[in-house]
Every structure is written in structure tokens, then in C-alpha cells.
């Protein structure tokens, strides 16, 4: 499967990197992303209850968005003991950094299939990814309104 069009440049690069990895290497790359997920910025610390919950994940995940100079920035809170979910969050946060709300809304809902992670992760784990995509789109809609 090829990398779909209409992806912000950095996200397209990430998807391509995963696509080119084989089997176990995909998990190693995902682990690197998991470890790169930044802590919540100061303004969000202690305000986790106000963040948008992602109840579809089997792990308590929350996301918040801010817009700076027309570009969106997503912040995720994911427990340390859920590195797979942290990896997904880091990919979305890094891949969509600075994207316009319209670009976020325009993301194909299944863009991540091109990464091929479904070869090494169950569909249930992958559903966590699609749930996060749905929620960042919801946050993008709020910016456009």
C-alpha cells in the first residue's frame, strides 16, 4: 500500500519510514516514537480533566489542542505502561505539528494502514490509532467553527 496523498509533509515522511521497515523493525521504530512523546506542557499540567478523553482506547488517553499562527499542536497524555499507545500519540503529535485545521480534517481516516503496523499489532490495538485520529479531527472542527 502506498502512502496516501493529502498528508501533511512530516506525517507523510513518518508513514513512509514505517512502510519501509520490515516486521520487528516497525515495532522498534514505534518504540522510538513512544519514548519521544513529550510530557504535557506546563499550561496543561493539572488540567487533565479538561482534556478530551479518548474512551475507545483500552488505556486512559487524553488529548488537547492549541493553535499557534494558524497551525495546530496536539498534546497527549498516555500512561508510561502503554508504550504502544504512546507511540501512536507521538506519531500524531509530531506528524500533525503545525498543520492547519483543514489539513487535519482532510486526513484519510485510514492513513495509518500504509504503515503496515497491522502486521504486528492486533486490530484492537490499531483501533486505538483510528480513535485518536477521530478525536484530533473533532478538535480541528472546533477550531474551524
Amino acid at each position, binding site marked *: 500500500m502506498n502512502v496516501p496523498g493529502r498528508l501533511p509533509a512530516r506525517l507523510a515522511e513518518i508513514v513512509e519510514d514505517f512502510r519501509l521497515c520490515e516486521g520487528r523493525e516497525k*515495532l*522498534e521504530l*514505534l*518504540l522510538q516514537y*513512544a*519514548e519521544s512523546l513529550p510530557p504535557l506542557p506546563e499550561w496543561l499540567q493539572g488540567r487533565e480533566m479538561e482534556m478530551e478523553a479518548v474512551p*475507545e482506547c*483500552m*488505556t486512559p488517553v487524553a488529548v488537547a489542542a492549541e493553535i499557534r499562527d494558524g497551525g495546530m499542536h496536539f498534546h497527549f497524555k498516555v500512561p508510561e*505502561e*502503554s*508504550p*504502544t*499507545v504512546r*507511540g501512536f500519540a507521538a506519531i500524531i503529535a509530531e506528524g500533525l505539528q503545525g498543520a492547519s485545521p483543514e489539513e487535519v480534517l482532510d486526513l484519510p481516516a485510514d492513513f495509518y494502514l500504509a504503515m503496515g503496523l497491522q502486521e*504486528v*499489532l*492486533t*486490530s*484492537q*490495538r*490499531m*483501533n486505538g490509532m*483510528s*480513535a485518536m485520529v*477521530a478525536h484530533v479531527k473533532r478538535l480541528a472542527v472546533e477550531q474551524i467553527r
Partner: protein
Amino acid sequence: MVESYAHPETLVETAWVAEHLSDPTVRLVESNEDALLYETGHIPGAVKVDWFTTLQDPVRRDFLSQAEFENLCSSLGIGNETTVVFYGDKNNWFACYAFWLFSYYGHEHLRIMNGGRQKWVKEGRPLTREVPAYPPTDYKARPPVREIRAFREDVFAHVSANRPLVDVRSPQEYTGELLHMPNYPQEGAMRGGHIQGAVNIPWSQAVDPETGTFKPPAELRKLFEEKGIRPDREVIAYCRIGERSSLTWFVLKYLLGYPQVRNYDGSWTEWGNLVGAPIRKGATP
């Protein structure tokens, strides 16, 4: 007298594991829900199994064949006499799944580390990223122990005979309220509810949420007997794909000593899609 577990030897404590880290007759196996957690650090000497990529057939919906299971054990340095200790995240949910599969192929010396990974970490015990390698063994699996696995035909017969079933999913899944879960299309079922006659005892109720350890025997016995799940009749446990119910299977069989317990690994993703299968909605069995 304080009641003890029926087969207390199947549970080991974290302190016991800490004392046996370099015991060559013991193999520690980490089995998690999260596919990457082992890589972030694990108990020194522990090997990893992943229920999806290691324990399941990549094509058919089934787990490893007997020959594949032998290869797996050999590659993990597990011999027929090795004592295998499973532990994992989410209160040993997938550790129990691995335990059940090893039981299916007749491995005799199986243990669960009480409290799982969470308890080991909370106690400040060591973790490492070093992945161990062990010399391969000449493992010989036994033919499958069919008595611990239920196929759909067994469940049909069980329902017809009004024998007890335990649905260990959440109350919302049991009543059928949660069916069209957003973003869960691939593991869904065409119908919501539960198998006719099944009582609902969520798997997590067998575990203390604070420590992740199993509840004491008397509490466990009360939990199941109050809902009519008693040792005098054969019991089938199920959930969505047979993983959460492995934990309940372990509790019934080894902690409470029920003689006949099966895990229905087809579970709701099979039953809720079967044409004509008897289903009940709502809170009534």
C-alpha cells in the same frame, strides 16, 4: 481456619521470583496486552511472548499448532521439565492467556506471578532491557487437552443442557448496550448481548485493583457461588476473544479447584456473528 487456594503452587509471589532469577529450572515469560512494554524493560532473564504475533496462527483464526508450539518452547529455552512463570500487564490478563495455551499443550509446571508486572514495578524491583538468549531445547508437546477448550458445538450443547456459563465482559457488553462501539468495526459482532443462560461476572472482580493480586479464596468463592457458578457442574467461561476469560478460567480451575472448566476462545466475536445462535439481551441470563 483461613481457606487457602485449591492449587496454591500455581501462584508465586514477586519475592519468590526475585529469589529464582538465576534458577536454570525456571523460565520467566512476560505476556502483555501492550506489544512494546517488554521492550521498555522486563524482569532480568525473562523472555517475551506476544499473544498476537507469537501465540496465534498468522492466517487462520486459531492459535499455534502442536508443532509450532514445540518450536516456540524450544526457541525460548523451555524444556518439558522447566517451571514456566508467566507475568504481565493489566492484572495478568494475557499472562493467564499464555498459561491457558501452555496448559492446552500439556505443559505440567506452570505458574502465575501474583500481582503481575505492576506489583514488581511498584516494589521497585529491577528491570532490564537486555534480551536473554537460551540454548534451544528438544521440546515435545502433548496432544491438546481438549477438556479445557470449548468450541461452538460444545457451547450449543452446554446451552441446551442448561449448564452454567460465565460471561466475564463488562456489564455494558453483557446487556448488549455496547455493540456499535465507535471505531471498533473489526472486532465487532453482528449482534449484542450474551449467550443464553450466561451470568455476568466481570473478570476484573477476581483481582484486587490496588495490588493487582488475586482476591482471597473466600471472597472468590463467594463471588462465583452467589451467581450460581459452583464446582459441581461443568462451567464454560467466555469474553470477547477468549483472553479475559482465561483469567477467570485460571481462577475457577486453580484457585478455587473447580474440576471442569473450559474457556470458549471463539467467545463473543464468534457467537455474536453465528446465524441462529441463542442470545439474550439485557441483565437477565
